[in-house]
């Protein structure tokens, strides 16, 4: 696909021109009226932008390289002169007394927060109690991005040290250590709300290292997954809430039911195998005795099996009720049938909502 052709302009690095061309075309190819063509146009637009930016960056790089080259030459020529000049220029920007004061104040506050974090972490009884960490969310300083991320990295590293120490212990010692020997999942998730570690993974990898990230981040992700939603009565004002079925529960129920149906299916094939084996044995035994009971058993078994098979396939409510007696019958034939029949009954019960009436 040639993005320039779609945009109807020639190859260019002018970002403005690309935008103009896109805007012009977009007024003909309206997103609602012509979705496919619009999608092509949009892709072409993004591609053109990308190409132009890349080219511009290359140009800039070349320009910088060229300049550096000439500067290098220049510098060797009059290196002595440069030395004097650079020493005055490189002097840092001087802060006013007020700025210095606020900076000092912030630094002091920051150090206090670090101290507090360290002291909470140092005490096993405290480290897993969220009340002890509450001072963090109450400090206005935490709203500053830099301070937040610095402190976050520090705390992350400290937690890693604590948890790693525990990991290094022998199996026996681990078993008999206190329950708060490590920083637990709930605490990590709570602190993640403060420091947003799960968003700053690159930073953490850089400053704290891969090992710490691999140890702690999965725990945080897992914990995040398990967080529950609010109580519906709490979120509104007035009225009285009649709680409905949670969709997630309904989904889990569906999952359990389809799992149950699958299980019945599996069992059916297993059973078919056993029955055919039993029938073979029975047929062998009854060959001489002319005993009709075996034949009758054979016929009914096959009949039920067909019923079961059709029931699973059609998932019809009639089939569902017909499957019950079969399972109960199985329950009577001790010992193997009892176990299978039992599993059948439990799963039938669970799969009930997914049979159509």
């Amino acid at each position, binding site marked *: 696909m040639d993005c320039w052709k779609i945009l109807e302009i020639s190859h260019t690095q002018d970002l403005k021109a690309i935008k103009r061309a896109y*805007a012009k075309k977009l007024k003909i190819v309206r997103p609602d009226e012509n979705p496919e063509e619009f*999608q092509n146009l949009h892709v072409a637009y993004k591609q053109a932008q990308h190409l132009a930016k890349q080219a511009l960056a290359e140009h800039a790089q070349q320009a910088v390289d060229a300049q550096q080259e000439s500067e290098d030459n220049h510098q060797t020529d009059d290196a002595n002169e440069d030395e004097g000049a650079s020493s005055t220029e490189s002097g840092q920007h001087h802060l006013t007394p007020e700025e210095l004061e606020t900076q000092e104040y912030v630094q002091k506050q920051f150090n206090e927060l670090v101290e507090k974090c360290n002291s909470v972490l140092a005490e096993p009884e405290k480290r897993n109690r969220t009340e002890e960490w509450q001072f963090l969310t109450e400090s*206005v300083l935490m709203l500053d991005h830099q301070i937040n991320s610095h402190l976050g990295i520090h705390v992350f590293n400290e937690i890693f040290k604590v948890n790693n120490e525990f990991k290094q212990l022998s199996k026996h010692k681990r078993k008999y250590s206190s329950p708060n020997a490590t920083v637990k999942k709930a605490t990590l998730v709570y602190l993640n709300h403060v420091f*947003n570690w799960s*968003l700053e993974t690159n930073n953490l990898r850089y400053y704290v290292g891969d090992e710490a990230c691999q140890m702690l981040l999965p725990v945080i992700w897992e914990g995040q997954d398990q967080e529950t939603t609010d109580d519906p009565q709490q979120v509104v*004002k*007035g009225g009285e*809430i009649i709680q409905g079925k*949670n969709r997630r529960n309904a989904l889990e129920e569906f999952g359990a039911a389809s799992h149950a149906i699958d299980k019945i299916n599996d069992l059916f094939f297993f059973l078919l195998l056993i029955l055919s084996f039993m029938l073979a044995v029975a047929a062998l035994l009854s060959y001489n005795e002319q005993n009709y009971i075996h034949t009758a058993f054979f016929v009914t078994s096959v009949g039920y099996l067909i019923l079961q098979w059709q029931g699973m396939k059609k998932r019809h409510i009639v089939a569902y009720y017909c499957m019950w007696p079969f399972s109960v019958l199985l329950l009577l034939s001790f010992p193997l049938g009892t176990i299978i029949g039992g599993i059948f009954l439990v799963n039938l019960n669970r799969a009930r909502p997914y049979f159509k009436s």
Partner: protein
Amino acid sequence: MTILGIDLGTTNSACSVWKNGELVSVPNRLGEFLTPSVVGVDSNGDISVGSVAKQKLIVQPSNNISLFKRLMGTEHKIKLGKRTFSAPELSSFVIRSLIEDAEVFLNSNVTEAVISVPAYFNENQRQATKIAGELAGVKVRRLINEPTAAAMAYGLNDRQEGTFMILDMGGGTFDVSILEYFEGVMEVHASAGDNSLGGEDFVDAMVDSMFRELDKDKGSVSPGALQKVYLKMESVKRKIDQIEEEKLTFELDGDVVEFTVSQPWFEKIATPLLLKVKKPIQYALSDANLVSTEIDDIILVGGATRLKHFRSMVARLFGKFPSCSIDPDIVVGFGAGIQAGLMERNKALEDIVLTDVCPFTLGTEVNDDNGTPGFFLPIIERNTVVPVSLERTVVTSYDNQGELTVRVFQGENRQVAQNVFLGLVSVKVPKDKRGAQAARIRYSYDSNGLLEVDITIVSTGKTYNKVIENAPGMLSSDDIQRTKEKLAKIKFHPREDEEVSALLAKGERMYATALGDKREQIASILSEFEKVLDKQQATEIKKAKSTVKELLEQLDGEEWF
């Protein structure tokens, strides 16, 4: 034919419409541009919406409800008095009231609407909003994302080109959108947000903190007393910038308690909530592939962005002050009106095109390599420009698999159980060895938020198609019709009386919350007013209305409108 632009908010709603080639806000029956999203049932079983219900909420919390937008897309029901409603039904009352106002204002019928939803609303919540519109008797032409609407209002106002970040903190939701405006094109780059963060959360946190500090149990207080506490805290929140320290007196079921609010106290409470603001901003920036310095302007939308603490935090984050030249409360309603104008192909908007994104990832469930089910396979990644149609190929996961069930999910989690379930399609596949049969799953998502799933079995070329319209538990079109008939039978509070009822409700609310002398004063004003009403003489009532309104306003210490 008129299309109405509706901002259906958590705490307040507004609407706007094109009239004589110009976009105008529609005033409600009380002459205000904001209608509180509160619904109430009175003793006759009639419905009242807006100010009346909002005032009554304090006195009779069991018959009135606000913030029900937070229950959209769930299956919870709400009992008001003797009646039971779902959240879309309650929203439909608000929409109906707005439509009536617009019809009176325009003197013509309104049959279609554009309704705004938080950008971060999931598909179930969007469907619920759509249903609410249909229950109110209008065709919902489009659901527009709130920050996009706000951006359109700004873009059209200033016609300034550049990249903008819109921060929309309303009563119950927080949305972030990054939008670029150039050459008449409004392109949304990314949307992110938090569905449970808004102005109301600050009030909740204040109330919780107060109960904690007083060492009292919030659950043991009667609902009426609790609503009064909420009301007081709401007005404290609104003027927190101006107070150094203030002593509040509450009556909690007999005991009179005192509590002192102050700036440092509020800061302590606000900080954890403001920390939550950062996350969606970072998400939006990284999805749009931008850094904070590339943002030309930050636009604030929604009542909660008036908070000084919020503004200074945003300023610190970006190193520049945010702008808000349009009233943050009505800007979304304005934007919805602009979208309505776009749908009508209004002359004034001929050269404007809007492209929006799908703020969530849409995908399906797959098994991992070990055969464990429950993993999420993204098909349309979040912040992809819409309308879009994309395809992924899956293979059967076990031998002799006869049926392939495509379950549609929305969300960002690796585990599907944590994402939002939208629907499912089951198709037959020829039985074969595990992995031998493949199916192409194509998702098509259009600007109206309609998701279509096409499944093609590769070996047979058979194609199955399903429009994911109603998530489980949602209403079918028959149900909608039936509910509509049911709702049509419910009477609304008569429109003409609304102003009088609003005044009486306000007076009663003030009487219930006031103490001592003030209380008697209010009682005497109300009884005088009632006497005038009994005489039923229009001119006298009109005169009395304005005096009572003034008197009550002087006495009312709460700022919550």
